[in-house]
């Protein structure tokens, strides 16, 4: 069975949810601890949401520099699938695995709401969707406004690395309505909304989010 690591930093909140999503998709969830020096042989990694270290300095800033992120960055650069959700996306940007940064919502308030997303790229984490497909997942963040300089944004669009865009104007003011992006090889993906909260109609808006986890599983089994 494919083994997908889920990292817990002090202050991580959605690790139980991410692990549940991994299990629902049919893989084994392996807990990784912020202090771990290696990835315990996992095939892919999820960096879940929350407020690592309270997000006091900048969202994700301190977590990006913790011991476990060394091997994550290395493995991600070498092609291991890595998914950063919300705080995890912020951490991947702070760690330099993804370009740009996430800053305070333009409305200056935390926003918790179900949002529509358009899947715009075929990546390790979106292969179960068709490009152009719309999905609904919860967004819940105070620092979710994606920013990067114009050259970076142009490059992301030109290279097909904008993975998710809000279907309505971004509730946080994200530039070009960007909700999620990927690395150049499409293996590392980060997004602000929470697919792991959309895996069961009982507790979320539906099951659209499960697609990210089944995508990577398919990827991993095809490679094996």
């Amino acid at each position: 069975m494919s083994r997908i690591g889920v990292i817990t930093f002090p202050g991580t909140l959605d690790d139980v949810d991410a692990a549940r999503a991994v299990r629902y998709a049919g893989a084994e969830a392996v807990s990784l601890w912020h202090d771990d020096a290696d990835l315990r042989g996992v095939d892919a990694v999820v960096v879940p949401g929350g407020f690592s270290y309270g997000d006091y300095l900048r969202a994700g800033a301190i977590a990006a520099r913790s011991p476990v992120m060394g091997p994550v960055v290395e493995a991600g650069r070498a092609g291991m699938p890595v998914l950063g959700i919300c705080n995890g996306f912020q951490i991947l940007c702070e760690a330099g695995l993804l370009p740009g940064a996430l800053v305070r919502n333009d409305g200056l308030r935390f926003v918790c709401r179900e949002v529509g997303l358009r899947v715009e790229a075929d990546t390790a984490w979106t292969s179960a969707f068709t490009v152009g497909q719309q999905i609904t997942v919860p967004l819940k963040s105070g620092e979710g406004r994606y920013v990067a300089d114009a050259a970076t944004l142009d490059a992301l669009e030109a290279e097909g690395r904008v993975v998710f865009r809000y279907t309505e104007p971004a509730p946080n003011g994200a530039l070009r309505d960007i909700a999620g992006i990927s690395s150049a090889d499409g293996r590392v993906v980060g997004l602000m909304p929470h697919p792991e909260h959309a895996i069961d109609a009982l507790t979320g808006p539906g099951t659209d989010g499960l697609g990210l986890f089944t995508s990577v599983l398919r990827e991993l089994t095809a490679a094996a």
Partner: protein
Amino acid sequence: MTVQSSPPAPSSVPPVDTVERAAATPDETQPHAALGLRDEEYARIRDILGRRPTEAELAMYSVMWSEHCSYKSSKVHLRRFGDTTTEAMRARLLAGIGENAGVVDVGDGWAVTFKVESHNHPSYVEPHQGAATGVGGIVRDIMAMGARPVAVMDALRVGPLDAPDTARVLPGVVSGVGFYGNCLGLPNIGGEVVFDPSYAGNPLVNALCVGVLRHEDLHLAFASGAGNKIVLFGARTGLDGIGGVSVLASETFAEDTGRKKLPSVQVGDPFAEKVLIECCLELFGGGLVVGIQDLGGAGLSCATSELASAGDGGMHVDLDAVPLRAADMTAAEILSSESQERMCAVVTPENVDAFMAVCRRWDVTATVIGEVTDGDRLRITHHGETVVDVPPRTVAHDGPVYERPYARPEWQDALQADTVAGRPRPSTPDEIAGQIRALVASPALAPRTWVTEQYDRYVRGNTAAATPADAGVVRVDEAGGRGVAVSIDANARFCQLDPRVGAQLALAESMRNVASSGAVPVAVTDCLNFGSPEDPAVMWQFAEAVAGLADACAALGLPVTGGNVSFYNQTGSTAILPTPVVGVLGILEDVARAVPHGFGAPGDAVWLLGE
């Protein structure tokens, strides 16, 4: 203010008011009145001790005998809850009134604990931090039962939406509730926002927390077993929230080194609390805790005296061991500090190392500050001298009890007589349209999304219903699907008209909300927000509301498992509307069968139940 080094060395040790010194200087005057103690209360303390209290003892008694901690005006009335609770009503209770929070058996070996508490005044002074630390406090109460906190709710009451100060208070309170709850990873599953002029100078912030545990994980607050260690863990102790006790400090410190008037606000650190939750759960899981108590209002004064008086021995605590955040804190200050995110545990000596190892893993500061002793005294030392030597019960439980006079106010009849019957009715289409417009534009009926969008309701993945549902529903057991529904309600205008019936209506509303989510109501918590108990009219409202609620609970077979009384909610001599907020907990055997809010599919029949 350093974080990594050891406590700052005292640079100018102030004279320590020891027990010995207190005995030798019986005539030294003490500022008991400034600390809120009445002359006869002060005399009683001297009686109990057979001497004048030391400064530190005076600080402890004054906070513990305050209205907030001792329930001195409400106790005689609250007994009614106990008196009307039958054995049958208690059948599901694993812990009831008197513990940090009530614990209810929900089946399959699972238990749920829940409680609502007020943080009204601090939320007026500093809305964001006041509301945030209100959430933090109730969450620690739930943790102290051995439970994992799983959801929060908030019942808010503020002045009219267009009152100038509401623009300061409401956004601050909402951002504070959201900041703390979101950062802690607790879904917010419901609450209320009510506008009324009586809250303009005295908003109400009532926070509720729900926790889940297995029966065998229940922990109670007591310190037993001589030789067991007292461990203080979590944040360092600082000068925050000392408020009233700064009177003592200004006497101790000379003018030039004198403390500035200390603010009575506390700043919350939800990240520290999140780590504390995980750390506590690991400690409970490892069987490393004999007894545990959270540090809330009254800080160490409360934790040490309550743990000691609930145990079977005495206790010795050494304040020099307490990790401090500020230099030169006096014993009185250390004992009264309301620094947040702290817990106090009783640990057997052989488990201390394992306990410390868990705390290190979570980067939580933990320190042995004392031990359970033979005998029945709480003895506290500072700088090597004894500064407190008291029977702990006299601090924690045997405070004053008042039978405050109460009387139905003269205006009550006129108020009740003033019905809508005499009001002009709209008759023309224009008038009717005008009324509809007024209703639609009323803040009372406006959607609450501006508030609820600032709260995470998805985290932990167990929320089966939250806004806009009538009751919040969370799954307790992922495998079995068992869950609970909670609602929190009050209608203070009804209570103003008739406090007895008003309180009953609050219960009925809350119960209906829970029932209509498909759950079976099983237990009640309440937060009784009133004006000054020294006002006989307010005291009457209080007595009526308690009696009404107790009787209704008895009639419906629902036990009150715990709650909170908040008095002195008034602006000048004008009290707020009597506001008994009632929370009801219900059980769902299968959350998947919770009844959704709103109409289902086209073609479904619509029924009206009741008259």
